[in-house]
């Protein structure tokens, strides 16, 4: 598309939409930086798996969904939750095990669920939510709600049979579900080339799913593909598979600091410098004269202050009372 055409097709609505996506991506970035800080200053119990570097996928896709649509997420799930509309203060509270958290502190970083925003829960079993997402899509179809489900997972889940059983059923029964594979290159500490034979995309195509591969760093590309596939699913035209190529800037989890034994620093630097999703979007907006540097500074400042006050709130929030331990075992 030539630049002239882009400018012509770009309305104020589009501009607001891209700035909103920038804000959402930056919110995830700032949130995760705070999580890292909480870990390093020993203020957070346990560990967390950060989404930094992959923000364009969660945001590009969730912006193509309605609030009622469902998502299932992963151990690296903070980005998905925020992109689907979770609030940063309840998220921090959950990460710190506080009563005011999304799950009263009983889920923690890897199990944030929020039915008000259609988030059926992050899942700490790799590939563990593929069946759940497919079941949610089954409900939507049977109950005629028109809701679409997005199942997020990393390329590590391509090793799990559950995913293939689920895609098979989704295609057999034409369920409104989109399987989103975030290929950040590493199954924990192992490059996917050591674990994954053949073509990732062809695995979905073998079941007859429509499969698309996108640059997961480019929120515009992710969003455009997501819109097409969501619309298709909503029109009862079947499930799809999206392969999003991306990169995890930091370690498998916050404690994975010395990473040279499995990937070179130069590789990390190259992605951060050349392929950063925030930079790619801001450069495109400024190059097309849709925004100037000032607007990004303004957004970042607002988000940072929201995130900082949420952390403060969460740090001071009370832990659950002891009685909470045996609540909610049964409904």
């Amino acid at each position, binding site marked *: 598309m030539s630049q002239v055409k882009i400018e012509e097709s770009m309305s104020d609505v589009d501009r607001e939409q891209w700035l909103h996506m920038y804000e959402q991506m930056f919110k995830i970035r700032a949130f995760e930086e705070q999580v890292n800080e909480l870990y390093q200053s020993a203020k957070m119990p346990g560990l967390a798996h950060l989404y930094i570097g992959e923000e364009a996928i969660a945001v590009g896709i969730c912006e193509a969904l309605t609030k009622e649509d469902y998502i299932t997420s992963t151990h690296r799930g903070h980005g998905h939750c925020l992109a689907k509309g979770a609030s940063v203060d309840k998220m921090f509270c959950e990460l710190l095990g506080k009563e005011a958290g999304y799950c009263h502190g009983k889920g923690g970083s890897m199990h944030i669920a929020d039915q008000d925003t259609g988030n059926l829960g992050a899942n700490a079993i790799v590939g563990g939510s593929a*069946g759940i997402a*497919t079941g949610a899509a089954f*409900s939507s179809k049977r*109950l005629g709600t028109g809701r679409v489900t997005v199942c997020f997972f990393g390329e590590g889940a391509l090793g799990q049979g559950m995913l293939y059983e689920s895609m098979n059923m989704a295609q057999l029964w034409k369920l409104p579900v989109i399987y989103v594979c975030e290929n950040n290159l590493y199954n924990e500490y192992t490059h996917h080339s050591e674990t994954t034979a053949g073509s990732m995309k062809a695995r979905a195509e073998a079941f007859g799913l429509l499969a698309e591969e996108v640059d997961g760093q480019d929120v515009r590309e992710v969003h455009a593909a997501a819109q097409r596939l969501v619309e298709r699913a909503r029109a009862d035209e079947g499930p799809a598979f999206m392969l999003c190529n991306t990169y995890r800037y930091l370690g498998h989890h916050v404690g994975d600091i010395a990473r040279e034994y499995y990937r070179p620093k130069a590789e990390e630097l190259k992605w951060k410098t050349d392929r950063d999703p925030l930079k790619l979007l801001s450069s495109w907006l400024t190059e097309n004269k849709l925004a100037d540097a000032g607007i990004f500074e303004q957004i970042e400042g607002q988000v940072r202050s929201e995130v900082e006050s949420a952390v403060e709130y969460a740090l001071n929030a009370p832990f659950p009372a002891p009685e909470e331990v045996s609540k909610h075992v049964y409904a």
Partner: protein
Amino acid sequence: MSMPEMRELTFGDAIREALAEELRRDPTVFMLGEDIAEAGTTFKVLTGLVEEFGTERVLDTPISEPGITGLAVGAAMTGMRPIVDIMFGDFSGLIMDQVANQAAKIHYMSGGKLKVPMVLRTTMGAGRRSAAQHSQSLHAWYSHIPGLKVVVPSTPYDAKGLMKSAIRDDNPVVILEDKMMYKTVKGPVPEGEYTVPLGVADVKRAGTDITLVATSSMVYVALDAAKLLDEIGISAEVLDPRTLVPLDKQTLIESVKKTSRVIIIDEGYEQYGITAELASVIADGAFYYLDAPVKRMGAMNVPIPFSPALEDLTIPNANGVFKMAKMLCGKS
């Protein structure tokens, strides 16, 4: 005016009737499993349901136990009430992540926001000459996991009433049906609506000298043993917990307080099994009333062998229960 005679149904027919009634009552109920539609399952328990309810509600699935269980979990979380059919309890190993890590924990992990109202039907019971991977009784596995309810019915009446309660329950409920009882066990089932609540034990035979706590098909082993004991002047009470989770501890304890002796009989493996848990409950609750050690009888701690000559040795039988009861009552 004499009461009309209560009709008798087989164990399998009572289950089918419960499922049909709930499918009729609640449009969000649906069933899925391998060969459950036209084939009516390999045990023919569901014959006729697809004709009434159609393939959208009685759904044949791929041979993908983890996948269909996972799909049911997701459907349950989003407004449906799925009933999953897992043909053999031995396939529990295939589905355990979806059951133990997903279904059982979602309500708790979400701080009570999400619910998983699903039923998982599967089978148990040896004696069918089906060898080590189609004969096990693995209800202890499910009973170990907080968040699941576990039902082991022994009679057609209980099977129907407990199934209906399970389907209406807002939690994941696992029902283990002894496949040997589908056709062979018959019993009275009233016409019309009733449910049996989860968590209430039932005295299948009243007695005063010894309590035989028995589950599923072991109830019949215990009843047969009780007849033999009766002949030598020992009065045995046969108590069926009916559900393992929730467990009606009080009724177990009260019975043993009365009889002072107890044998617990269950078809799961004896080691670390259901019998051990029930023995502990009784030892805790009725210790000062006991006149003999709490005894338990489970399946032998071996993979179930194929040969009839060997398989029959692995399951508790009436004669074995009779002998042990006699010994506990001091009659040699």
